[in-house]
């Protein structure tokens, strides 16, 4: 990752993340990237993780329902068949903090992960793949969150 030098100049939290991004020793205390999770926008969150400007790519997929019956639990899948993925990110554009999760994938797992996120309102959800060669690719999908139940 040629963004390493840039990242070293950032906060201690981000520096800690570098350790996590590398080959993590079994019981290392991986640091949590506060800057990335505090970022309000998708772009800022990616930047806080040391990523370049994301480019939309057909090689990255994001799956999820068109409509979520409840924003408290929205199933999301992110994947790419490209080789050399270092990280997969899941973001919700209109959440107060866009970044939901960062997965550091090794060669021993598929770059294909399913999880569930909260959505405060209808929004784009975005999967970002940060590649070993420094490329940052993304895919997005709009998910409508409906009002459910009696509303009381």
């Amino acid at each position, binding site marked *: 990752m040629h963004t390493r030098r840039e990242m070293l100049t950032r906060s201690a939290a981000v520096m800690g993340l570098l350790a996590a991004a590398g080959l993590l020793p079994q019981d290392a205390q991986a640091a949590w990237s506060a800057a990335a999770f505090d970022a309000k926008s998708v*772009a800022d969150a990616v930047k806080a993780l040391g990523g370049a400007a994301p*480019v939309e790519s057909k090689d990255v997929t994001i799956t999820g329902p068109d409509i979520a019956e409840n924003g408290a639990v929205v199933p999301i899948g992110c994947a790419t068949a490209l080789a050399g993925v270092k990280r997969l990110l899941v973001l919700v554009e209109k959440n107060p903090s866009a970044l939901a999760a960062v997965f550091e994938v090794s060669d021993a797992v598929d770059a294909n992960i399913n999880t569930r996120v909260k959505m405060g309102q209808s929004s784009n959800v975005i999967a970002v793949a940060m590649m070993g060669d420094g490329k940052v690719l993304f895919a997005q999908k709009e998910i409508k969150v409906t009002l459910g139940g*009696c509303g009381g």
Partner: protein
Amino acid sequence: MKTFVVGMAAVLGATGLAQAQGKSAAEGIAEYRKMLEDGNPADLFEAKGEALWKTRRGPKNATLEQCDLGKGPGVVKGAFVELPRYFADTKKVQDLETRLVTCMEALQGFDGAEIAKTPFGRGEQVALTALATWIAAESRGLRFNLPQGHAAEKKSYEIGKRVFFYRGGPYDFSCASCHGEEGKRIRLQDLPMLTKNPGDGVGFAAWPAYRVSNGEMWSMQLRLNDCFRQQRMPYPIFGSEATIALGSFMGVNAKGAESIAPAIKR
């Protein structure tokens, strides 16, 4: 960064349009529910309930393994689809939760009245919900078949029917206001018709269920409690006759329905 934002706006417009012309809301919701089926967090409560059943607890430091849920001491499989039913030892029709309280009192030495007074989601009510979840799961796939042989069971059904249709409160609602007709919904949620056999696992046969909206496991007592809240009624007392009679009414009506509890619900 600018290119990213501009590009996204363009794509958003296009996908928004495509989706508006695509699937209907109902299809979208069905797709959402399907995605959640695999990985129902009710599993977590089920595991906890099983452990609690087998753990020595309470003043008597005993397990619940000798609890009689209606099919004899310790028989769990199949018990859920025959509750509420009449119990000779308490001389009462009891639902799953009130029967569990009886067992916790008799076998473990807990104070049953204290548990009944405890708010949902606190103290021993947490244990009760987990136990109910596991016991329900042990009958998954079995069909509802509540006994109606005892006079008290027949009476419970008849009273439950009247409770179901009882209108009151500032909104004039009864259970039947929402659950008395086929094919209705509130907002986007389908409302099971509970006055006749509701079919497989739509209404009565789906609870306890994991509620996605608040991330909590809801037992039938809590389900009924919130129904009465939404009816704008006063607060139903835990394990009260009206709540158990409603269980009898819905359970008898659900005869033959396959239990899918613990389910996952909005």
